[in-house]
């Protein structure tokens, strides 16, 4: 624990300094510029376009763009589902994992195509290596590339004047994968192996003492799982598993990878709209909220669990022990490394865990829960975090406009009724899915039966599941038995709503903005790069999150916190 706060500081410093060069690189990639990787990868890129029968300069309107994205997702859905249903007969299955039941296969396929990576199964007891690689790893790449592509389309909607096209979805997907995700993943995977993360195709090992050790190609999947804000673990315990996240340094590298691309995309945004201050303002708003959440979570976990007082146990940190709330945590990470991970993974739509959130203190667990409910916009998912945040930025300029009685504008584009409708849908649809799903669950006996902890925490488990699925996070209060028909199907619907119910309105909005003329800045224009705007933006995000979720949070974590000292 003594190192927890310095680790947090180093984390923020490294994150923000790495964001700049990567953000610049990504802007170049999305604008079709030449990068250092072009001599190697450009021929491959061109070959792909030829095979696909497309020209890289073909423009798509918003509907064609949205259909393209949806189409490749549907293919992914079918492929993952079929792989899971037939894996027993396919190669690369040394443990002879059986075919997976339809309900669970459908839930998992939806989960991975929507960048949620909710897991109602445990990797090492359920999936073959082929399913992990050809099914899940592929979707990790495509769903992350989709996020970047949709963001690129939205930005073009803002920057282009009186136009119709938003770019080409295929080209954006190919470039994001080839020039951004693949090289980063390759480098990270190798680094993780150097730290002890495994990468092999061997059958499970039996030791002399009779212990069975699960094996597999973990590092390659872990790298893109972190960088693509996917979060689906290779093993059941996700990044708490030492073979998935071995050393404190592998832990630190993985935590950096969670927020690296989302933070860098703010810089990319600044480049693309030709006003870097705009990107910095969004990054500042995200950082402010992140720091607040991190402080609360770290403090709660480092302090420990008052319900264990009086048992002759010490939870006080010293030079030779971490202390704090250690149930469900790994010693090498301690409460500090676990709280930082929990905050980053739920600020982003990552959802991987290196400690069991179900066993977090009530306030320590409230932080990840609320961060998801804010819509995953504090850094957020790859691409999806920033386009989500831009929806909030539109609401913020709209509210600012109402105050002075003037049609609001953002970056020279008038924000009118249609844009506000789309932004509202994109913001409120996941919120509605969370609350309605939770409300139905507490009324259905089969859903309540999945709860594993008594009292208010049981309610938190249900609320967490719906918050996670609807916002495409994927982390869980994992005591909840989610592999039931009710949750497999219900959460699949929530995941689809949370992904496509946001992507479609965002692209429709982009399609509307792109047609508009440029409105020159006037005296009444609210500048969107100032500390004042950062404050308004943070205020809007927190206000929507608070108004929507405080009643539910009061019934769960807050109630649990108040009763903690009376547990005997």
């Amino acid at each position, binding site marked *: 624990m003594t190192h927890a706060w310095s680790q947090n500081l180093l984390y923020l410093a490294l994150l923000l300094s790495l964001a700049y060069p990567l953000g610049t690189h990504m802007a170049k990639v999305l604008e079709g510029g030449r990068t250092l990787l072009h001599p190697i990868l450009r021929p491959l890129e061109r070959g792909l376009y030829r095979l696909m029968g497309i020209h890289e300069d073909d423009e798509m309107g918003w509907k064609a763009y949205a259909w393209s994205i949806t189409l490749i997702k549907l293919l992914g859905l079918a492929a993952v589902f079929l792989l899971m249903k037939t894996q027993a007969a396919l190669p690369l299955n040394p443990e002879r994992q059986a075919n997976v039941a339809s309900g669970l296969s459908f839930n998992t396929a939806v989960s991975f195509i929507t960048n949620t990576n909710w897991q109602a199964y445990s990797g090492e007891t359920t999936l073959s290596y082929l399913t992990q690689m050809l099914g899940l790893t592929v979707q990790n790449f*495509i769903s992350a590339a989709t996020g970047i592509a949709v963001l690129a389309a939205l930005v073009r909607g803002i920057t282009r004047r009186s136009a119709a096209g938003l770019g080409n979805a295929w080209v954006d997907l190919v470039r994001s994968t080839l020039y951004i995700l693949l090289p980063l993943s390759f480098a990270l995977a190798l680094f993780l192996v150097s730290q002890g993360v495994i990468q092999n195709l061997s059958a499970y090992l039996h030791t002399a003492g009779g212990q069975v050790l699960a094996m597999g190609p973990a590092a390659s999947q872990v790298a893109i799982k972190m960088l693509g804000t996917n979060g689906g673990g290779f093993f059941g315990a996700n990044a708490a598993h030492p073979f998935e996240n071995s050393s404190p340094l592998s832990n630190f590298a993985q935590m950096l990878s969670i927020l690296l691309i989302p933070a860098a995309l703010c810089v990319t945004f600044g480049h693309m709209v030709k006003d870097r201050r705009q990107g910095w303002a969004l990054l500042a708003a995200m950082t402010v909220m992140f720091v607040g959440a991190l402080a609360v979570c770290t403090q709660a976990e480092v302090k*420990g669990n008052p319900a264990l007082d009086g048992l002759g146990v010490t939870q006080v940190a010293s030079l030779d*022990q971490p202390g704090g709330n250690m149930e469900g945590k790994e010693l090498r990470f301690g409460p500090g490394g676990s709280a930082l991970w929990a905050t980053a993974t739920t600020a982003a739509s990552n959802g991987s865990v290196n400690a069991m959130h179900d066993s977090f203190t009530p306030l320590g667990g409230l932080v990840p829960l609320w961060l998801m409910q804010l819509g995953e916009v504090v850094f957020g998912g790859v691409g999806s975090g920033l386009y989500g945040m831009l929806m909030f930025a539109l609401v913020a300029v709209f509210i600012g406009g109402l105050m002075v009685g003037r049609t609001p504008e953002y970056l020279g584009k008038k924000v009118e009724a249609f844009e506000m409708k789309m932004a509202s849908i994109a913001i409120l649809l996941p919120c509605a899915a969370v609350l309605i799903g939770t409300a139905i669950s507490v009324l259905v006996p089969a859903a309540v039966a999945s709860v594993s902890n008594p009292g208010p925490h049981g309610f938190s488990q249900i609320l967490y599941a719906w918050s996670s699925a609807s916002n495409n996070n994927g982390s869980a209060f994992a005591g909840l038995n989610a592999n039931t028909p009710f949750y497999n199907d219900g959460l699949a619907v929530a995941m689809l709503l949370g992904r496509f119910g946001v992507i479609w309105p965002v692209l429709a909005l982009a399609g509307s903005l792109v047609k508009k003329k440029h409105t020159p800045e006037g005296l009444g224009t609210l500048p969107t790069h100032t500390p004042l705007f950062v404050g308004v933006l943070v205020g809007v995000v927190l206000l929507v999150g608070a108004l929507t979720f405080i009643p539910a949070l009061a019934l769960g974590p807050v109630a649990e916190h108040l009763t903690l000292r009376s547990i005997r």
Partner: protein
Amino acid sequence: MDSQFRPALVLFIALSALTGLAYPLGVTGLAQAVFPHQAEGSLIRRDGQIIGSEWIGQSFTAPRDFWGRPSATVDAQGKPLPYNGANSGGSNLAPSSPDLRRAVQDRVAALRTADPEATGPVPVDLVTASGSGLDPHISPASALFQAHRVALARGLDETTVRDLVTTHVEGPQWGILGEPRVNVLKLNLALDDPFGAKSHKSR
């Protein structure tokens, strides 16, 4: 939408081959060439047999061994099987769960029974289950807490055992990443065979 079907299908197949086969197999090949020991699980071998992995904890219950952290892993039927390396997971008990408090109480009692002279406060990591159920480490405090019992059971001087613990403490990486820790399996192996590591290397 029709006109988009061919590019969608071709791109999907191409990306599947590239990111689902070429990438993981490429990483496997390179990892096996550059870091073969780590890629295969950082295995510890003695006399040609695999004893375990330095990253995966094992269940130690004899008084003469250092004990690791409690593990909540189960077997295929859902029955408790601590340190099951083929089915990782935590207890997922809520902080407010009476079961958690009871489990901690029992574990403290077991430690006191195993060594009535260890009356000091028990370090929390020694009586709480890890997230993976496979945690290979305990805190230095938790190791020192058990030194008296281990020394007694092995007929060793307690100072010798405490010194051995101290030499096995790994500090935080880069000085601030992670927590100071002791690898339980390595520590027990060193106790079993103080010259094991050396003779193993010279062989």
